[in-house]
């Protein structure tokens, strides 16, 4: 673009022309294009397979964490019911962490799906453009002098070159996202292995360990306080010093069922 703008354009065009410079003869460009297309096709297939594997793994983890959320919520209620506030708090803290994790997983899976679709679209366009180029090249050769044909074929080749760069970019982004996702999956596995999402009854009640200390730091205290206040209200217990849950909404399915502070009257 005129003036100082269009810098993205300049940068990306430099990249494309460097790629096209590799082939001075347009015929060679076409061959290069086919070769590249074959490579891309292999890459795309592998890329999509990787994406699907990563996605499945994350979805399985999401399923497990969902179960943990339900279980921890039930446990918190039970603990509260028998007056064990400490255990209830621990369960709620873990539930908090699990819910945050769940949201993040869902979002990343959705992002991955969109990358995958873009990759498929872009690859399809490249295929069509290469075919169009092959046809056009013959038409140009028949209509123009050798020198003129060379110029026109080069122009058409640039159109193909751009699409190749486009597929390359879509690929790179899908690969990057998948790598992120793998890292995320590994991180979640570590949390699981550390027992973060475990059934509380399995780790011997109120045993304070490293995980619990970390969870205290991780989870938002006020949200936990709020949930505890709600549970107290539901259970008809008094609410000693719980902050009023006025502004934050927890989105918890139990939230609507209770009349807050009922037991106070």
């Amino acid at each position, binding site marked *: *673009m005129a003036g*100082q*703008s269009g810098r993205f354009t300049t940068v*990306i065009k430099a990249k494309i022309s460097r790629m096209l410079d590799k082939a001075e003869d347009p015929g060679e460009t076409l061959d290069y294009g086919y070769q590249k297309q074959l490579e891309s096709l292999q890459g795309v297939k592998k890329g999509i397979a990787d994406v699907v594997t990563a996605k499945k793994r994350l979805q399985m983890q999401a399923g497990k964490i969902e179960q943990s959320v339900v279980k921890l919520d039930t446990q918190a209620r039970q603990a509260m019911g028998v007056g064990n506030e400490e255990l209830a708090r621990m369960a709620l803290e873990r539930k908090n962490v699990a819910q945050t994790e769940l949201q993040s997983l869902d979002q990343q899976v959705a*992002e991955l799906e969109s990358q995958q679709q873009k990759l498929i679209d*872009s690859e399809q366009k490249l295929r069509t*453009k290469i075919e169009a180029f092959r046809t056009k090249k013959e038409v140009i050769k028949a209509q123009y002098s050798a020198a003129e044909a060379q110029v026109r074929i080069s122009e058409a080749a640039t159109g193909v070159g*751009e699409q190749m*760069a486009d597929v390359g970019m*879509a690929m790179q982004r899908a690969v990057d996202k998948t790598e992120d996702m793998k890292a995320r999956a590994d991180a979640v596995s570590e949390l699981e292995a550390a027992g973060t999402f475990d059934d509380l009854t399995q780790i011997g009640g109120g045993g304070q360990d490293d995980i619990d200390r970390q969870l205290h730091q991780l989870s938002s205290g006020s949200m936990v306080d709020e949930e505890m206040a709600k549970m107290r209200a539901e259970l008809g217990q008094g609410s000693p010093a719980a902050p009023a849950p006025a502004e934050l909404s927890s989105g918890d399915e139990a939230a609507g069922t209770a009349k807050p502070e009922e037991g106070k009257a």
Partner: protein
Amino acid sequence: MIVRIFTETQYRLDESHHARLDELDDLVVAAVKADDEDAFHASFEELLDYVRTQGEPLGDDELEASDFILPPPDLSFAEAGEEFTGEGLIPDPPAAA
């Protein structure tokens, strides 16, 4: 003129849109320079939307080189910064850019 949005498609726009595109592009540049992430997302989205709404998508079998190429719509703020510094893309960036 032909504008490509990377990982999306190419659009054909009337030359009369050139000035407005230029303005919108400058806003993106300014937002990145000012290290303002919100402004970057807003202005970049506006630029892309302008191309999408004012332009006519090219057929898949059309072989046109683009006059302008815009980065992918999911470009992150960090990536935008890298594009501008040209690290790894432009071997010898102009001094005092």
